[in-house]
């Protein structure tokens, strides 16, 4: 089963990289960009067919490693 874990910074956490990207987009003439915050995407192949089990595993993976829950949120999607 394919799954995707998306990790993003909690609001209020300063994101200087996002700001730098914002500035670069502006310099490139990409207009109308109000703000950018950079996150991470993990594409994971899970063995088996049990959706609930997969979600639980991925939650555990996110809590224990993929996200630093002090500063990051995560979203788990089992795609199929």
């Amino acid at each position, binding site marked *: 089963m394919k799954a995707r874990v998306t990790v993003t910074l909690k609001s209020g956490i*300063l994101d*200087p*990289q996002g700001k*730098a990207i914002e500035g670069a987009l502006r310099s490139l003439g990409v207009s109308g960009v109000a703000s950018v915050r950079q996150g991470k995407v993990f594409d994971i192949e899970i063995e088996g067919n049990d959706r609930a089990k997969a979600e639980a595993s991925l939650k555990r993976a996110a809590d224990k490693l993929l996200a*630093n829950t*002090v*500063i990051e949120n995560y979203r788990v999607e089992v795609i199929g």
Partner: protein
Amino acid sequence: MKSAVLVFPGINRERDMARALRLISRREPAMVWHAERELPPGTDLVVIPGGFSYGDYLRCGAIAARAPIMEAVRGFAQKGGLVLGVCNGFQILCEAELLPGVLMRNAQLRFICRDVYLRVERSDTPFTRGYNAGQVIRVPVAHGEGNYIADGETIARLEGEGRVVFRYSSPDGMIDPNWNHNGAMNAVAGIINERGNVLGLMPHPENHVEASMGRTDGRGLFAGLVDHFKLAA
């Protein structure tokens, strides 16, 4: 003082650290590989040195914090053993939740490689007994992610409990944004845990311990630790 220096793949400051420990404790430190499950018997001080463990992949120190040896370090710290984390070592301690907060990307996005001034906030810890409270020392930093961040509650607790041990300062000990190169909250350069046995700091005191290095301001940290163990014996 029996010290153990942890080595993870990508760590590159272990030999500088071993040199400082050898020089000042007059004892050869043990070099402990990340895959080991035990610390050498009789270890007094565990040191996690600087570098780019696991290439800073995922997050700085994230993977090292979950390496096999860290379970032994956790147990050691729980029993009151002293742990010192420098630079990547500080990042590893935060990721391992042996210290609160997180080290994020330097606010100005540049890797900073220069000498900085640190104000030693208290001298009543085993790590800082070699200094006077309020003393300003000059030590090198070399990091891209040294921006200490924690939520309001954690910062309040750290400050309230006097757990900020080193702060970036001007040469005469003033806290000033111009002397806080990485933008760290409250100019935090180093903190201790609740129990006072685990210290993490971003700068490299081990690189200022010999006259040939230009300055010896870093000696006090190591000499103080040696004294601590001499008196405890």
